[in-house]
């Protein structure tokens, strides 16, 4: 089991909002293997960002609480670490790239000042060593004139360059796991292609694992080895990337793929999933997707489906239950016979 860099077991997170509580993450399981790229896909509000923040230990302390479950990083549970211990990990062994390169850099510090922070925290280096290190990393992420950029401020750089600076910030201490939360969503397609190419390259070069959080299925198709599909705070499907795109098992994943414009005939009516994602406060018994699912039957509304395994392809849907399948087939047969 040592090839798993990160393992999340039955994670549940609760938020308090005044007197109300809501539970945006309900029983999330997944793992990241050494050297692989795991994609986490889902629509806004499905809990993918909260999950990644919990791995980084960045959840707001006052209003959130990990109710149960564990987060194993190199076989060590980090979900209940103290802040001081977490600091040794954060930016050093696990690092994160955020969505908005415009807002995640501090506008009043130069690039060099911001990039030297993790090195000062985690490594014992002299000032000149730090500077040389930063320049080397800036060059590694493909920034031209790194020697000058190190003394410039974020507003002097374009969006794509800022995202490159963010990536170099995450790379500085040679982390074992990098979490990229929608790293290309704010960027244009041509710049997105550059950044994705860069991420692939540095992942191999630095022998690290990448956890890529995105809502864009085509980014997943491009980048990932394995994919976790999240819906309303649960993992509904997990599979290898080719397997997922060839044979999506969960109706939600099927719906997502069918609703991509590129998978529909031009000018035709696009396939769409009716309704919308339930709010965390609205979720009750049964399968979370049941109210939007075209195949839902009584059992879906009554009981929450467990995870059904089919090889390495895991999906949480009653349709995958062998017992249900048999019943369905019998019904079909009887329809055909009658």
């Amino acid at each position, binding site marked *: 089991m040592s090839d798993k860099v990160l393992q999340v077991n039955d994670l549940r997170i609760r938020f308090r909002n005044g007197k109300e509580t809501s539970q945006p993450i309900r029983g999330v399981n997944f793992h990241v293997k050494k050297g692989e790229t795991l994609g986490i896909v889902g*629509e806004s509000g499905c809990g993918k960002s909260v999950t990644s923040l919990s791995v980084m230990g960045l959840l707001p302390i006052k209003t959130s609480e990990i109710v149960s479950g564990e987060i194993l990083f190199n076989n060590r549970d980090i979900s209940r670490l103290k802040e001081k211990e977490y600091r040794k990990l954060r930016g050093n062994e696990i690092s994160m790239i955020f969505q908005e390169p415009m807002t995640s850099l501090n506008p009043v510090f130069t690039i060099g000042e911001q990039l030297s922070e993790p090195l000062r925290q985690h490594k014992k280096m002299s000032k000149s060593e730090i500077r040389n290190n930063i320049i080397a990393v800036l060059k590694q992420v493909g920034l031209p004139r790194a020697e000058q950029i190190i003394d410039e401020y974020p507003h002097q750089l374009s969006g794509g360059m800022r995202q490159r600076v963010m990536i170099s910030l995450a790379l500085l201490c040679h982390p074992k796991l990098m979490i990229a939360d929608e790293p290309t969503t704010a960027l244009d397609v041509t710049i997105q292609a550059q950044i994705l190419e860069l991420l692939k390259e540095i992942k191999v070069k630095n022998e690290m694992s990448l956890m890529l959080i995105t809502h864009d299925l085509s980014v997943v198709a491009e980048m990932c080895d394995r994919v976790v599909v999240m819906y309303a705070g649960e993992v509904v499907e997990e599979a290898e990337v080719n397997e997922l795109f060839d044979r999506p098992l969960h109706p939600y994943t099927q719906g997502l793929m069918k609703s991509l*414009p590129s998978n529909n005939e*031009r000018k035709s009516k696009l396939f*769409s999933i009716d309704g919308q994602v339930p709010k965390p406060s609205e979720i009750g018994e049964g399968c979370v997707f049941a109210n939007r699912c075209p195949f839902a039957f009584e059992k879906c509304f009554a009981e929450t489906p467990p995870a059904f395994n089919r090889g390495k392809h895991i999906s949480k849907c009653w349709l995958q239950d062998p017992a249900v399948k048999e019943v369905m087939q019998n019904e079909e047969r009887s329809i055909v016979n009658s």
Partner: protein
Amino acid sequence: MKNEVLLTVKNLKKYYEISQGMFKEKIVVRAVDDVNFTVMRGETFALVGESGCGKSTTGRTILRLVEPTAGEVIFKGTNLASLPYEQMRSLRKQMQMVFQDPYASLNPKKTILQILMEPLKVHNKFDKKERLRKIIAMLKIVGLSEYHLDRYPHEFSGGQRQRIGIARAVILQPDFIIADEPVSALDVSVQSQVINLMLELQKEFGLTYLFISHDLSVIQHMTDRVAVMYLGKIVEVADTEDLFRNPKHPYTQALLSAVPVAHPKEEKKRIILKGDVPSPANPPSGCAFHPRCPFALEICKTKMPEPTTFEKGHTANCHLYIKNEEEIEYVTSYS
């Protein structure tokens, strides 16, 4: 129907001046620089480009939400650019806009009823009693219902808000709608619902869309003709299918190749452009694309290319096609 010109944009320019202090020369940002295109009645015309290329400014300048610096916008035979304010205002009932951000484009202090009533009041359309009926009918068309009338925008999800934004534009029964990135703030499953709605409305009311977007897959799906913009200029215009099958301009080729694949097994030859889009305040000389262009020639640095016309109204502004045949083959074999 198809061949009637609804809108012609001629040499449209929008320059912004940035003052550098009293005696210094002003910096001129050429947000929209000499843009020409025509939109036929009943079609969906797309403007594509990366952020900062001037596609939104073009849309706003057509409606005169920002005043053009120069050029003509001819809508049904009248030049909008020179109309007095009052006449322009009344003409807007024939041309409406759907905005990008459904969170920012609805007034949070007004109910849905007030939001939808406002255009009817302003343009004095329908009988007072009939207005409410129209509003309810419109809400049903966009997939909302009567009991949403007294709610405020914050009570709706992003997709529902965008439906309200569309309802507000369509309720005046305009001929022409400018949709500025109407689906880019939405999730995939909601995005497809809104695209379907827009296609349905187009059929039902015979609308003409100017569809501004950076999302090529949406454009491929729902538009008839596309204009590709780069740094304030249109570099290529073509029928959508033609453009996606056979892009001529090197920028369009790179843009299309940068779209991520739809399936992991799909292999794609990628043209990765170097560098970023230059600042429109200080555009490169000659062809604006030449510093990033993999095929740049000597002439590209000095001379602005003229449009070259190919079959079926496909035009591209690129020197490669003005030169001899050999190079054309060279370029197209790469695409």
